């Protein structure tokens, strides 16, 4: 398994190598509702890519297409250069999906023992328990685990086959800060071992903490792609709050303003160049009052990016 990884990693990390997983002009409709619209996206060997977007953006759909759990309406999905429904691929890929109910009466090690048996060269149960931080919980029944521990078990099931490629669909959703950080550490350790990871999340912070590359997805389309630094530069900027007589249309015309929202008696602008925007604001509305300028939070910047789309 490691040999295969090395073979592919000899190619440039994110460069010309054949992608490990890709969506090629993929659209997916549920009934008539589009979930993905002409998406082109790929993950290269050794990379950690985050698919970042709000709920309902199409992140889970993208993962399920790559797992061969459903077919695209048009375009094609490829994993290791093959159709994802090829069961042979499943040996080399692990998946952590969002699950409503896991059999609660089985113990942690029993779940891992069963899933490990599906793979030809699994990690030992001890290794899997250690990688997921579950050593002390091995005899605990799933039903008696906390939310964070449950996610760690699902993580353990995804990695127990020692896959080259990992799909993590919202791995930390609903977890508290501490549980989230624990899982991040475990994901990082896996990445250090040269695994390729596709992660979906709606937390920019999480994508920033883990990913080499972020693809921002909204309403079924990829609207921005780049390193975390590039995405932050795109979504960065300042937040300007003031009371003004100018209307929304006029405010959006101001230099660098990408978003305007009403906040009680005031308006809140999102601007990439705060100084230019403020200069223009004051020129247009001498009576302007209550001016505040603040750094836009990462989450707010991300909201601005998805809203602008």
């Amino acid at each position, binding site marked *: 398994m490691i040999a295969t990884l090395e073979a592919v990693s000899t190619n440039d990390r994110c460069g010309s190598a054949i992608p490990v997983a890709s969506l090629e002009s993929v659209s997916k409709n549920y009934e008539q509702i589009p979930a993905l619209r002409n998406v082109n996206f790929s993950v290269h060997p050794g990379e950690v890519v985050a698919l970042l977007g709000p709920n309902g953006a199409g992140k889970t759909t993208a993962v399920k297409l790559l797992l061969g759990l459903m077919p695209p309406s048009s375009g094609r999905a490829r994993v290791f250069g093959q159709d994802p429904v090829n*069961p042979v691929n499943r040996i080399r890929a692990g998946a952590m999906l969002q699950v409503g109910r896991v059999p609660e009466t089985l113990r942690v090690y029993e779940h891992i023992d069963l899933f490990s048996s599906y793979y030809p060269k699994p990690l030992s149960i001890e290794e899997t328990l250690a990688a997921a931080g579950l050593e002390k919980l091995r005899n605990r029944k799933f039903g008696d685990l906390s939310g964070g521990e449950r996610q760690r078990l699902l993580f353990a099931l995804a990695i127990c086959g020692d896959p080259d490629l990992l799909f993590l669909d919202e791995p930390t959703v609903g977890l508290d800060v501490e549980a989230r950080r624990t899982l991040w550490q475990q994901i990082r350790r896996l990445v250090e071992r040269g695994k390729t990871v596709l992660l979906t999340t709606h937390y920019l912070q999480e994508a920033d903490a883990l990913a080499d590359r972020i693809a921002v997805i909204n309403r079924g389309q990829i609207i921005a792609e780049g390193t975390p630094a590039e995405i932050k530069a795109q979504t960065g900027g300042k937040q300007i709050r003031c009371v003004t007589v100018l209307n929304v249309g006029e405010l959006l015309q101001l230099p660098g303003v990408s978003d305007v929202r009403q906040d009680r008696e005031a308006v809140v602008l999102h601007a990439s160049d705060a100084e230019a925007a403020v200069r223009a604001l004051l020129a247009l509305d001498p009576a302007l009052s209550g001016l505040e300028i603040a750094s836009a939070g990462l989450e707010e910047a991300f909201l601005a990016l998805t809203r602008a789309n």
Partner: protein
Amino acid sequence: MSTAAAVLSRPQIERSTADTASIYLKEAKYEFLKNLRLRVYTASVISFPLMFYVLFGLVLNAKETIGATGVPTYLIATYGTFGVMGASLFGTASGLAADRGLGWLQVKRASPMPPFAYFAAKFALSMSFSAVVVSLLLVLGTALGGVRMPALELAKLLGTLVAGSLPFSAMGLAIGYFAGPNSAPPVINLFYLPLSFCSGLWVPYMFLPKAVQKIALALPPYHLSQLALGVVGAGRHESAAIHWEVLFAFTLICLGVARIGFQRDQGKLYG
């Protein structure tokens, strides 16, 4: 491309027979453990037939006979059928409906699990719990109801009833593919209880109203109970071959319905 062709033409994972056997065994073992620890399952599936048997076969009518057969013996066959049906329907349908509806089946399908291992485990679970229920009935009957049977007859009765788990496991799959995760248990009961009554599992066939007797002839549990009664010499002397044929045909129909549900799910999945 039809779904079936797509499924069949896919390359398969190469595994040694030993590895494959080990997966099937583990899947069955954990399916068994999972349900054994599930009190809702064990309590309803095992205790109900036993309670009915103790009450109607041992406490109330122990000295009565039906034809030439003592009530305690007769009721092992009918409550045995009732127990097998319950173990099989609940063993397959409720788990499948929940696994399907709440995403667990998808996690398994994303793994390299051989798909049939999942279904085989459910059938194995149904058969083992059926064997447990029937054995307990036999123990109770022998210990407290004065039931005496030659060993061969005992084995034949147990074997017939456990084999009878298959049609109802197939029926459970069909229900599991169409019922929602929460509606599965009431839907199962909707079939289970009326079928049991109308097939003469609670009230012996000859005491059923005439109209119900006619209906019973069309019901699979009636045919299984007649096979079991035939073993203890209390059947209605119809051809055993016909009973087996009806059960076999019923199994095929149920598997056909389950297959439609399976493909409908794959349709969402594989188009």
